[in-house]
């Protein structure tokens, strides 16, 4: 079945070769236009609302990018539109909370300088590991059986399954841990820095740095290592990957683990902002999908830029239109994008998504 679909793909894509090059050019120019407009927006926000707004937008942009990259990766490689991405964020937040707060309490007593600095990082690493394991379990337990059973209507079925997973995880957490908000005021009890006249807490700087570093590491991993190359190979041509001896099942499990792990890291880093509670994932999920739909489904490099675009759009909305319209503007923007460029401003890289 899978091979037949693939050979169909080939004949379909090869025919309009000239058009595609042109189409690519067009999307590339439109992408530059969008980036330019975003930078313009950033400058305007800076002039009107002050540099603080811009810095805040950049920080949250890094986080949206980190979330969206995980989502895009899973979508691009496995054709799974992950609706449970927010729950990975939630798991990360909880793990970081439960690892960090005992350390924090212990620290209040012992006053260890080393633990004071390193403690939060232990939380982040624990969150990353937990997310990775969660991803592996979900993939093995749910998507692997489905893949073996049927590939028919895969995208939609996978999507609905992730909806179910999200439902189970949210309500399961509610059941086991309870609906209480669990948060921390900050990771590091240090006075905020002053940067360009903006007061920046250490937490924000670290969160942003971690986002950037994680994305950079992922980028390097995908481009330069053998396994990373295999992941890209699977996303481009699954049969081809099978033929060169890549264990596709392994790549799928790894990819899902990586994707969820990135969301968990984001959840851990933003614990000081979001707190941990069962439905905390909805907003991050919303933003991650906003980014991914905007830039084109499954486009990993687009998602990095998209995170910042979305952050500035949000900052602009708050600045010029009003917080009340925070949820309305994205909908309108997305409508416009889907009408003007149905496959997103940077182009979609998912093969199977056009099927019903």
């Amino acid at each position: 079945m899978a091979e037949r679909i693939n050979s169909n793909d080939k004949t379909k894509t090869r025919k309009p070769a000239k058009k595609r090059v042109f189409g690519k050019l067009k999307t590339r120019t439109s992408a530059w236009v969008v980036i330019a407009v975003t930078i313009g927006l950033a400058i305007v926000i800076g002039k009107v609302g002050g540099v603080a707004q811009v810095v805040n937008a950049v920080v949250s942009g890094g986080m949206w990018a980190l979330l969206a990259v995980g989502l895009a990766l899973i979508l691009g490689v496995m054709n799974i539109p992950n609706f449970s991405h927010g729950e990975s964020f939630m798991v990360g937040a909880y793990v970081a909370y439960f690892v960090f707060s005992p350390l924090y309490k212990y620290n209040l007593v012992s006053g260890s300088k080393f633990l004071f600095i390193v403690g939060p990082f232990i939380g982040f690493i624990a969150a990353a590991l937990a997310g990775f394991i969660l991803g592996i379990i979900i993939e093995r337990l749910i998507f692997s059986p489905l893949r073996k059973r049927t590939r028919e209507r895969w995208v939609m079925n996978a999507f609905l399954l992730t909806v179910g997973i999200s439902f189970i995880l949210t309500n399961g957490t509610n059941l086991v841990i309870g609906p209480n908000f669990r948060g921390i005021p900050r990771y590091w009890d240090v006075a905020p820095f002053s940067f360009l006249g903006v007061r920046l807490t250490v937490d924000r700087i670290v969160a942003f740095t971690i986002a950037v570093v994680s994305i950079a590491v992922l980028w390097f991993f995908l481009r330069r290592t053998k396994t990373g190359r295999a992941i890209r190979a699977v996303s481009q041509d699954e049969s081809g990957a099978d033929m060169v001896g890549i264990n596709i099942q392994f790549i799928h499990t790894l990819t899902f683990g990586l994707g969820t792990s990135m969301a968990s890291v984001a959840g851990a880093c933003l614990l000081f902002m979001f707190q941990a509670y069962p439905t905390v994932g909805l907003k991050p999920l919303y933003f991650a999908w906003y980014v991914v739909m905007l830039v084109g489904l499954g486009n990993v490099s687009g998602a990095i830029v998209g995170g910042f675009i979305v952050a500035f759009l949000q900052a602009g909305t708050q600045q010029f239109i009003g917080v009340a319209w925070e949820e309305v503007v994205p909908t309108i923007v997305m409508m416009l994008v889907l009408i003007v460029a149905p496959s997103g401003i940077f182009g979609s890289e998912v093969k199977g998504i056009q099927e019903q």
Partner: protein
Amino acid sequence: MKITELAGRKRKMTGITNILQRVGFSPSGFILLVVLAVLPFIPPFSSEFILRWLIFGAFLAAQAVAFDLTAGYINVVNFGFAAILGLGAYTSAILANTSPYLIVQTGLTPWIGMFIGAIVAGFVGFILGFLTLRLRGLYAAIMAWFVGIAILGLARNLIKLTRGSLGLSPPSLLETSSNRPYFYIILTMMVAIYIICKIVTRSHYGLAFRALGQNIDAARASGINPTKYRVFNFTLSCFCAGLLGGFYAHYFVSLTPQAVMHTSKTVEVLAIAFIGGRGFLWGGILTAFPFVFFIEYLRSALPGLPGLHLVIYGVLMVLVMIYYPKGLAGFVVWAREKIKIYKEEKNGGF
């Protein structure tokens, strides 16, 4: 001999069964409905406590029918379903408002407000149908989700109209403390929605829906106008949702954005509809009632575990989707076929 006998029996049955068949009831289905209708007079079910369960079951069942009209036929999962239901509820509640703190104080009777709410919801469905028209499966689902979140955001932020997250307390539909009349209202709504959807899907519209759901390009190539059918489908489904929203507002008499419009509410309906089986309409009805009873029983038996029922929803939905995508309705149809074959063998020995 046997064949003529069978044919004769069939002819005898045609009178009533035919009419029932036309509005989408098999004989056994109709019997179940009658049983459901007399339940409120039979002791364990006649208590106000259990009547509430029945009402909730009918409410969920009706939602599942309206939801299945889009999800099961044209294969577009309307992820903004709860928000649209909430829109109907809010419209009716706002129109019925008499408190001087809000800007609209028409004090309209809920009986009319409910239908206006349904029309507003239907209109949004109409727009949603147009917006997602060119989009396929996943895009349409996400777009509908975004529209739903936008509606939720408006309900939360237009404080002068909706009191924001504090919510509204609309007047109740009837001046009675008994639940029984409410049960008959929601049951009538459920049956009406079911019959309307069934008649629509039985007509050539249903055929067009299914064609669009399977392959939009092929459907277009064979002369089906996707705009007309998809928009009609969305409008009808959302109209029904709006009507149900009106009932919700004036039965529960409390309305907050979070309790009505949240994405998880859509997922609840989705779970019921999918466990019931896609593309049958009655699958959701068949699932909703036992589910509500099971869940309410769980809730009263294990009060220390809030939300356990939702976890069970999710697990069941995932299992059904992986291992038995046809759902409960698919199973019933399969079993019915088996019984028919068995009977024929016993009767005639073909």
